[in-house]
Every structure is written in structure tokens, then in C-alpha cells.
């Protein structure tokens, strides 16, 4: 996180705000809800309070503006610059301006008003842009489902460094952006996808292309806004060019790079008993057409051609795969299966039916 140059801050904790005008692209109530929710993002982690006022000057004046709106920072039409705000201070200090020509929405289409206002309020309170790609104060727009939004730890640390902690008995914490070369990095799910490897962690996806040395970090929502964060298992059916993604008792299908319509569906369609509430990991053996699902200390085997579970399952993981413990994530590449358990990765040879290698979880990232 970065403070705005000169460390400006409000000298009081009880601030006022006013919504000067509205965009015709959203219902007024939705605009007000987005503002309220955005202010709560910051009041929830600091002693700050925000009271709405009408018909008089407020500390934070929120308005939609068009091109040159007489603050020396003209907007540029659709896309590009979405909004800007001013550091704490009198007059225009603290004010938030939103580019009227953007496609403002309350969901994943266009630009989510809540996300953008929450970011701009960071400036109104004295924060500058953060270089943490997962931070709310990162300069580039990225969508997160407002229902799932949690203020990242980087932003919490920044705003509390200015205004102190919240008065709540338990201090709120936020998600931390995964670092590819963090030796303590563990994964929720891993799958191949058309020659690349996708490592899922919280609301992020680390993407490893075989021809590129760097690992790319993106929000899952950047590619698939309708997918939830916290994917728990995933596997690729190379023959059908599909990837199946699991969370709790539901699964989605990616066909190519797009979420197929009609999903999510209950995992019970695949033949799991009702006692199974979630899938921990999965991989599919391209040569045999068999897919292996790992749940707690057991696993099921699914026949992709018959599209049904094989008989005689579940079996104990340890009896057929050895001492790999609970499986967090798994994928198959070049004939070997890679099981991830915490920060440990086991390389398993399905023909020899034994573990042939043991590495760190981050071995794929050229650290």
C-alpha cells in the first residue's frame, strides 16, 4: 500500500458524504446501495463513520461527470479512465468523480459501480495506488462479485496505518495475494487447460504456459465472471476439450475457454452418493479415459466413456496411491500424476503404481 504524497488524512473520524447526481444507467436505489456498500468497506476496518447529508456541503461529494468538468482532469469517454478522486481536504478534497460515459452496473457486466467507488474512496481517505495486483487500491479495474468482496489485507494495513484499527472486538482480516515463489503456497485445485496449467487459489488463478518463463496471476473472475472463487477441484477431459470445476456440491464445465450454459449442476449427477459434500481434487487419465476423484481419504473412479462411476469404489487412497495423505489438488501431465498435499508435491507413476518423486508445491514456477 502507498500513502498519498504528503500523508493527507481527515482530522476527524465522523465524515459526511453526499450523492450529487445519478447515472441513467442504474436505478437510483442501486447507486445508493453501491455507495453505501463501498463506504462500509472502509468503515468496517477503521474507526471512520460516514453519514449521508443532503442539500449541503459534505466531506465526500460523489458525482457523475462528463469529459471536461472543470477540475483540470477531464474524463476520456468510454473505458480508459473510469473515475478519479481527491485526497482528504477542504472543498474538492475527498470528492469522487465517476465518468458518466462508462457502462455502470451492479454486476459483472460493464464496470461495477461498487468496486470503482470503493477504490476511489481509498483516495478520498488518503491512500494512493498499490502495486499489489490483488489490492483494491491497484490502479487497474478488475471485477469481483460484490457478494464475495473482502477488503484485501494490503488495503486494511494501509488504511489502518492512517486511521487506526476498527473498534470491533475482533479485527477484520482480508485475503492476501498469492506469490508464485512463496514456499508456503498451497493450492485449492489444479488442472491443465489446452497445454497450460492453471493453479487455483482463493479468488486467484496462477497460469503457467509451457513456453513462458513467468507465471501469470489473474483473478478467476477476469476470465470467468460467473465462476465462484475458492474452486476446490478441477480436471481436464482432453478428448472432449472440457475442463470440469468443482466447488462444494456443484460443478461447472468449461468448453474451450467458456463456461458452458446450464451449469452449475449437482455433483450427484456424476454418481457421487449424497454423503459426499465436496470434492477435494481430481485428475483424468487421458489414455484410459478414467477420472479419479479424491474426497477426504478415499477416491472414486469415473468412466468418461460410459459417463458413470466404476463399481467397487470408493477405495482408500493409501491402498492404491501410497502415502500421499489428503489430496488438495492433482493433475496429470506427460504420463505422470502430480498430487499436492499442503506444500508437498508427489510425482506418481500410474503404470508402476508408485511415487517416483517428491517436490515443493511451487516447483512449476521457475523460482
Amino acid at each position, binding site marked *: 500500500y502507498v500513502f498519498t504524497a504528503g500523508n493527507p488524512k481527515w482530522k476527524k473520524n465522523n465524515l459526511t458524504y453526499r450523492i450529487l447526481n445519478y447515472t441513467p444507467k442504474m436505478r437510483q436505489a442501486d447507486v445508493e446501495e453501491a455507495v453505501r456498500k463501498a463506504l462500509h468497506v472502509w468503515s468496517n476496518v477503521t474507526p471512520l463513520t460516514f453519514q449521508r447529508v443532503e442539500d449541503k456541503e459534505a466531506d465526500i461529494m460523489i458525482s457523475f461527470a462528463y469529459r471536461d468538468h472543470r477540475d483540470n482532469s477531464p474524463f476520456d469517454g468510454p473505458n480508459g479512465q473510469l*473515475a478519479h478522486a481527491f485526497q482528504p481536504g477542504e472543498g474538492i478534497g475527498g470528492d469522487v468523480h465517476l*465518468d458518466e460515459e462508462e457502462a455502470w452496473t451492479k454486476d459483472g457486466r460493464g464496470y461495477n459501480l461498487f468496486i470503482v467507488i470503493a477504490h*476511489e474512496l481509498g*483516495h478520498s481517505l488518503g491512500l*494512493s495506488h498499490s502495486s499489489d*495486483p490483488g489490492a483494491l487500491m491497484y490502479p487497474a479495474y478488475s471485477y469481483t462479485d460484490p457478494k464475495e468482496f473482502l477488503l484485501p489485507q494490503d488495503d486494511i494495513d494501509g488504511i489502518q496505518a492512517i486511521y487506526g484499527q476498527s473498534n470491533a472486538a475482533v479485527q477484520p482480516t482480508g485475503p492476501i495475494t498469492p506469490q508464485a515463489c512463496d514456499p508456503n503456497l498451497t493450492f485449492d485445485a489444479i488442472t491443465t487447460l489446452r497445454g497450460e496449467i492453471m493453479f487455483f487459489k482463493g479468488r486467484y488463478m496462477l497460469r503457467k504456459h509451457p513456453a513462458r518463463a513467468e507465471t501469470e496471476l489473474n483473478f478467476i473472475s477476469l476470465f470467468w465472471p460467473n465462476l465462484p472463487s475458492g474452486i476446490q477441484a478441477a480436471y481436464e477431459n482432453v478428448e472432449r476439450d472440457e475442463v470440469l470445476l468443482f466447488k462444494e456440491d456443484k460443478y461447472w464445465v468449461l468448453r474451450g475457454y467458456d463456461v458452458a450454459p446450464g451449469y452449475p449442476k449437482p455433483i450427484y449427477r456424476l454418481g457421487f452418493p449424497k454423503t459426499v459434500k465436496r470434492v477435494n481434487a481430481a485428475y483424468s487419465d487421458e489414455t484410459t479415459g478414467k477420472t479419479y476423484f479424491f474426497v477426504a481419504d478415499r477416491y472414486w473412479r469415473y468412466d468418461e466413456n460410459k459417463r458413470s462411476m466404476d463399481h467397487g469404489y470408493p477405495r482408500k487412497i493409501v491402498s492404491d496411491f501410497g502415502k500421499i495423505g489428503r489430496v488438495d489438488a492433482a493433475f496429470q501431465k506427460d504420463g505422470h500424476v502430480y498430487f499436492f498435499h499442503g506444500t508437498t508435491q508427489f510425482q506418481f507413476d500410474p503404470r508402476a503404481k508408485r511415487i517416483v518423486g517428491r517436490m515443493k508445491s511451487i516447483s512449476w514456477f521457475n523460482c
Partner: protein
Amino acid sequence: FPVAPETEDEGKTLQLVESYLRNFYDFQRDHHPHLRSNNENRLVEKLKEMQAFFGLKVTGKPDLDTLGMMKKPRCGVPDIGR
């Protein structure tokens, strides 16, 4: 003569880079044409600053990743300076 597409692209790229760095990285163009190398050096320095901020490879060149980042919708507040 019609401008060759690559040259036109270069022009657009330079325009994008300069306006991005002017808006968000306090790049000031020097209005003395005879000091062209100065300008280029300053542009490279600012480009490196932007690449370092976004965790991109610091090349000082408008490579694909850098241009991709510059085209992303974003906040209008500068990343450095007031």
C-alpha cells in the same frame, strides 16, 4: 502516400505510451525538438518506472505485456506524484 500500417501502428503505440505516462507517471515532454535524445531517455525511464510498478518485466520498451496493461480500464488518479 498512404502510411504503411506498421508505421501507423508505431505512431499509435507511441501516442498511447506517451499519454499514459503523461497521465499517470508525470512524464513531461520537453518541447525542444533538438533535444530528442533527452525525450527518449526520459520516456524510457518513465516506462521502466511504470513496468516496475506493475510487476512487469522492466525493459524500457513498449512490449506486449506493457501495452496490454496500458489498455486496461483504470482509475484516473496518477500512480506517482500528486
